[in-house]
């Protein structure tokens, strides 16, 4: 099929998926232009015309970038993200910009200024977040792959809730030039797909050093992973802190089945401990808001988006009115918390302490991997997707939806969420974690597990 014909089909699917509220910007004209470029290329490229959606915090010159926020309404970037340029060089078509929690702050995609995203499996439930629009489009079969961004689990968690693959690479593996900054020591462009193979194909073309992002690793791009035939000779650790007694029974059963599949594939399973992981969520909710408070200081009504003039008419009133009205409730809350933990008198008690606990969390992972464990297997989320509105009144209850994904982000490690079954019809995800820079080996092993575990089957 030509890219032009594929673009028409994708446009039809995007239109049909409008009730999910998963897209913020797309047009058939832009899709057709993407297809014309692909069809005119002398070679198909590694992605051969694959339509890929982008979370709306990844910039392109052709479409607006809002980050799900009123404060960026009408903003279009004057440059394109490196990751998007590399996707296009590999023959991908950019299909749409997707809805998200405002500035990637949220776990349910209910904190978008442009309305909540519905989970395609059950529209009354959330798709997870903050990359919920990208997850929903892949789960609904609109596109085979989409980019999201991870700061504290914002791809793995929605992948789990929507029943798709979500791959977070090692910190620094993919250029962040053109990813709107939230928490700069944590942010990673990450991939949603329907299969592990597609995640590997998309990730491989985006990896590699970028002179425009000094935090990218100066190492060669990741080769496309070759799926392992079995897991013989590999040790998979089950960290006991990630299997609490009150784990949702459906999640527990799906993980038990995944563990059995690993053993059948010849892998050795052993219990391990990551004693500081229970502190990951409180650590994250100090570090990330502190970095966000600094990164979001640039949205002041002067350089971007709409401007409000305050009652006093001076420049500070302009800043305060623009930011007070332009940011939604969750972003304002996190800016306040971030400013508080960085302020004089509280810096040592909160921010410095969190940075040190972060080091202990990362050291736990290092020690476990150094002991001969190849991968770690955990649930991605403590429950399947929750109902819309269920946690919006209590920010801490919402934060706890990320309890199994935050520690990996703080440690900068690669991890993938795989769909491993359904509980009462809702997808359950398993998270496989690898040592730093072992992204290729992680996906090779994940492909073997994917083959062995029926993702759509109900667990008992």
């Amino acid at each position, binding site marked *: 099929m030509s890219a032009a014909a594929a673009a028409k089909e994708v446009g039809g699917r995007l239109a049909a998926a409008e009730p999910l509220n998963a897209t913020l910007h797309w047009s058939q004209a832009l899709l057709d232009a993407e297809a014309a470029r692909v069809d005119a290329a002398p070679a198909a490229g590694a992605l051969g015309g694959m339509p890929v959606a982008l979370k709306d915090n990844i910039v392109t*010159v052709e479409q607006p970038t809002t980050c799900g926020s009123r404060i960026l309404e009408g903003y279009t970037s*004057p*440059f*394109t993200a490196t990751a998007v340029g590399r996707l296009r060089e590999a023959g991908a078509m950019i299909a749409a910009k997707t809805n998200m929690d405002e500035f990637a702050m949220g776990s349910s995609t209910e904190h978008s200024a442009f309305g909540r995203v519905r989970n395609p499996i059950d529209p009354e439930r959330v798709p997870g977040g903050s990359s919920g629009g990208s997850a929903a489009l892949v789960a609904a079969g609109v596109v085979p792959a989409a980019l999201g961004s991870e700061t504290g689990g914002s791809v793995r968690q929605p992948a789990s809730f929507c029943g798709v693959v979500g791959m977070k690479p090692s*910190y*620094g593996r993919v250029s962040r030039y053109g990813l709107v900054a939230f928490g700069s*020591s944590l942010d990673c462009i990450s991939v949603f797909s329907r299969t592990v193979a597609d995640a590997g194909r998309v990730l491989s073309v985006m990896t590699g*050093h970028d002179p*425009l992002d*000094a935090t*990218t*690793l*100066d190492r060669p791009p990741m080769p496309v992973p070759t799926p392992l035939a079995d897991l013989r000779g590999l040790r998979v650790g089950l960290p006991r802190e990630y299997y609490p007694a009150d784990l949702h029974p459906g999640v527990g059963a799906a993980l038990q089945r995944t563990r059995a599949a690993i053993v059948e594939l010849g892998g050795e399973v052993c219990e391990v401990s990551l004693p*500081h992981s229970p*502190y990951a969520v*409180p*650590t994250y*909710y*100090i570090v990330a808001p502190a970095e966000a*408070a600094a990164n979001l*200081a640039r949205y*002041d009504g002067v350089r971007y988006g709409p401007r409000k003039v*305050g009652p006093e*008419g001076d*420049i*500070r009133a302009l800043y*305060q*009115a623009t*930011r*007070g*009205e332009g940011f939604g409730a969750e972003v*304002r*809350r996190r*800016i*306040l*918390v*971030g*400013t*508080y*933990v960085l*302020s004089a008198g509280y810096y040592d008690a*909160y921010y410095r*302490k*969190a*940075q*040190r*606990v*972060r*080091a*202990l*969390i990362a*050291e736990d992972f290092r020690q476990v991997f150094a002991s001969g464990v190849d991968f770690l297997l955990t649930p991605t989320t403590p429950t399947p997707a929750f109902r819309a509105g269920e946690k919006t009144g*209590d*920010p*801490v209850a919402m*934060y706890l939806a990320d309890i199994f994904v935050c520690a990996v982000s703080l*440690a*900068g490690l690669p991890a993938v969420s795989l769909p491993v079954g359904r509980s009462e019809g809702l997808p359950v995800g398993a998270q496989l974690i690898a040592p*730093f*820079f072992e992204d290729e080996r992680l996906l090779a092993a994940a492909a073997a597990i994917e083959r062995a575990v029926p993702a759509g089957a109900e667990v008992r």
Partner: protein
Amino acid sequence: MSIGRDEVLHVARLAELAVREGELDRLVDQMNRIVDYVAQLDRVPADRMTAPFLPGPASAALREDVPGPVPLARPPAELAPEFAEGFFLVPRHGAMEES
């Protein structure tokens, strides 16, 4: 540790964020809830403290500090009505004219 209305207003001023009177009490409650929650880090023994963590390999690759071309789709001069000597020229703000 309890955060009061004055403290929230002070932090909001530091963050250049207008807070509406009607939302202040809710913000006070939520900030206390969040700060009480993260305070559990006090339970991590101080003798286990290590140096702050930096993600990625120990030696991050920093690019040479050499100015290069800016990869914009359009040159900066086309992004605003007026551009001169590397700066965007904007209208004077009323309050700033007085100073």
